């Protein structure tokens, strides 16, 4: 049974986290600012930012926050997957217009924490996260796709 | 005149604001005058009707007749299937639309 942990940060945000390490406390800087400095450990990507710009620096990043200005803007899903495919193991956070019905797809793209603008109903989220037994395709999570179950 | 119309949330039926309620029959529709926006806001929370909007119509003997053919089709039903309209037995109903 998959369930998130609710965390209230010092900054007053409510996070839903699927990680058990400590919430990263440093403020997330913009991509431009990050690329201009050497010591930032948290970066925020806007929907149109190129996640690949972070690839040379993944070792120093503890948190990447990706913005969803509206829930219909799907660019963040690709950004997340690109980071996970490149080996990023830090916290990958979806922030903004994040609704309960999108969180399962976001998890599969590699997001492991969520900062939704509006509260998410915990019971609905738990139900949705545990609804599908196995996915059809490989993504950035550890779930085994159906074709692998069929053929080993 | 100005009518308020939308689709019933649960059934999808075309409905018309009657002054206190929503009816499937355009003959029951009232002129909302300048009150349209206020009624829209009030009805949003009631969750009875999806995306209601205002349309222009003229008052006629048979009741309000929407200015645009699209809303006349909504009021009656598809012109190519009279049997599926609100007035299947009325031979003149199609002429009212067109």
């Amino acid at each position, binding site marked *: 049974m998959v369930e998130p942990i609710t965390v209230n940060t010092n900054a007053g945000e409510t996070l839903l986290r699927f990680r058990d390490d400590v919430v990263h406390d440093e403020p997330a800087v913009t991509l431009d600012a990050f690329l201009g400095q050497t010591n930032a450990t948290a970066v925020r990507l806007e929907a149109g930012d190129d996640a690949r710009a972070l690839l040379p620096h993944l070792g120093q990043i503890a948190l990447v926050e990706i913005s969803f200005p509206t829930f219909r803007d*799907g660019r963040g899903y690709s950004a997340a997957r690109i980071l996970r495919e490149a080996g990023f193991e830090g916290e990958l956070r979806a922030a903004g217009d994040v609704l309960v019905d999108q969180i399962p797809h976001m998890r599969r793209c590699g997001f492991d924490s969520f900062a939704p603008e509006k509260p998410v109903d915990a019971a609905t989220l738990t139900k949705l996260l545990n609804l599908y037994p196995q996915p059809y395709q490989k993504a950035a999570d550890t779930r085994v796709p159906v074709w692998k179950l069929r053929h080993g | 005149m100005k009518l308020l119309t939308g689709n019933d949330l*649960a059934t999808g039926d075309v409905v018309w604001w009657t002054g206190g309620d929503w009816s499937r029959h355009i003959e029951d529709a009232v002129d909302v005058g300048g009150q349209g926006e206020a009624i829209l806001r009030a009805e949003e929370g009631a969750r009875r009707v999806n995306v209601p909007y205002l349309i222009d119509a003229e008052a006629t003997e048979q009741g309000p007749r929407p200015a645009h053919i699209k809303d006349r089709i909504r009021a009656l039903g598809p012109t190519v299937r009279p049997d599926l309209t609100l007035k299947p037995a009325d031979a003149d109903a199609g002429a009212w639309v067109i």
Partner: protein
Amino acid sequence: MYRYDEYDQSIVDARVEEFRDQVERRLSGALTEDQFKPLRLMNGLYLQLHAYMLRVAVPYGTLDSRQMRMLGHIARKYDRGYGHFTTRQNIQYNWIKLADAPDILAELATVQMHAIQTSGNCIRNISSDQFAGAAADEVADPRPWAELLRQWSTFHPEFTYLPRKFKIAVIAADEDRAAMRLHDIGIQLLERDGVLGAKIFVGGGMGRTPMIAHEVKDFITADHLMSYLEACLRVYNRYGRRDNIYKARIKILLHEIGVDAYREQVEAEFAAIRDLGIDPPVAELARITAMFAGPDFASDAPDTIDRSDPDFAVWLDQNVAAHKQPGHAIVTISLKPIGGIPGDASADQIDLMADLAERYGHDELRVTHAQNIVLPHVRKADLYAIWTALRDAGLAEANLDLISDIIACPGLDYCSLANARSIPLAQKIGERFAGRQRELGELKLKISGCINACGHHHAGHIGILGVDKKGTENYQLLLGGSGAEDVSLGKITGPGFDEDGVVDAIERVTDRYVELREGGERFLDTYRRVGMQPFKEAIYG
């Protein structure tokens, strides 16, 4: 055809539960309409003029009699006794209640059917050639590849909020019977040095700005098809326009950055992901392919047909195509009776077609993108019995590819996006030309009730676009489009007409064609030879 295993079934069942929960939350107000709309669209549920409309998926247009009967059952139980077959090989019901939608999906799931991703900004039904598995000219049956892609695209977590809808077609012959070049991604299977692979085309589409897909990949084998397509989709998801819904399709992206730039970006993405284990083993395609092995055809089926009934002979010549197996044939059932509603079938007609498939057709049917139904595998010896049953049910119009075999969108009679009605126009055209249609020969006429082009009017030999002219319905006439392998986009003739005016204009066009044609030229061939000018003169004087 494909049969679900426990995994496929569990996914469809889970989807039903998910949607049931979403509908409850909508009805209770926990979800606003703005939040609910993309979710219901991804289950094929539109809000249209008169009611909710449900679009049920028919994957690559293939279904069996049990599934066909379920479609008839849905029409009777939840709708008003009929369904409408669409230009993407799906079926639509026009009178659905939101509260019933979860139960409908539950019933569909019992026969391995669903309405997944038949709308919304996601990857839609993968379409294919309606003669797949029966035509002699295919290099292989394209449908196993379509099934592989159906599974890959279903609930793909990265591509569920694309800039816009995404349509893929798969064919396997040089003759394009699925309008492949007018899709966001078109795939043509072919053989290279004895190896089966595919050519990939990207950036086709109709709508407001019709475009023909460009070749982007010369040859890709099945073992990397999925990672290659992921790269194609990812570039689109990242860089497709999201500022203007009329410029959000992938065709606009290719148009704006150029095919070469798009190809380079895809290759770069492909290089980054091709070894990440995204592609299933070839055993998976082999597993699916085995299910499409085709029926056991009788090897001694007689090849001769008794043509003595003249009406039967006319239908035989027009609606029956050659099958790769001797003694067999491919039947197209016309859903375009003169004066009828193109693509509609009553529940009784749906049941009859299911019965015919089960009895005479190795239990298989196809939906074509021209809104007709195909029985792909019948014996020549059974054609007469099939025809008499169709005739008695009003399904024997002998008009395949003739002027009355009209592709028409539902138009303003049903659709909230439409500017004009299309069905009454289709009826008038059918009635005007019924007596001359055989003389006119192949003439693909397509009608769209608005610029969204769901009736594929850009790809019509004669196309008609319904517009709103100061509050009244008006129709523009286009000539010279084609959705086949000789793909081309129609050109507007000039000022538009009212409903009767456009029928008259078409008559002047066809009269001029008959005057000018040489040899066995189709209308399209004559148009391409002589150009627009003679027709323009005929129409406008």
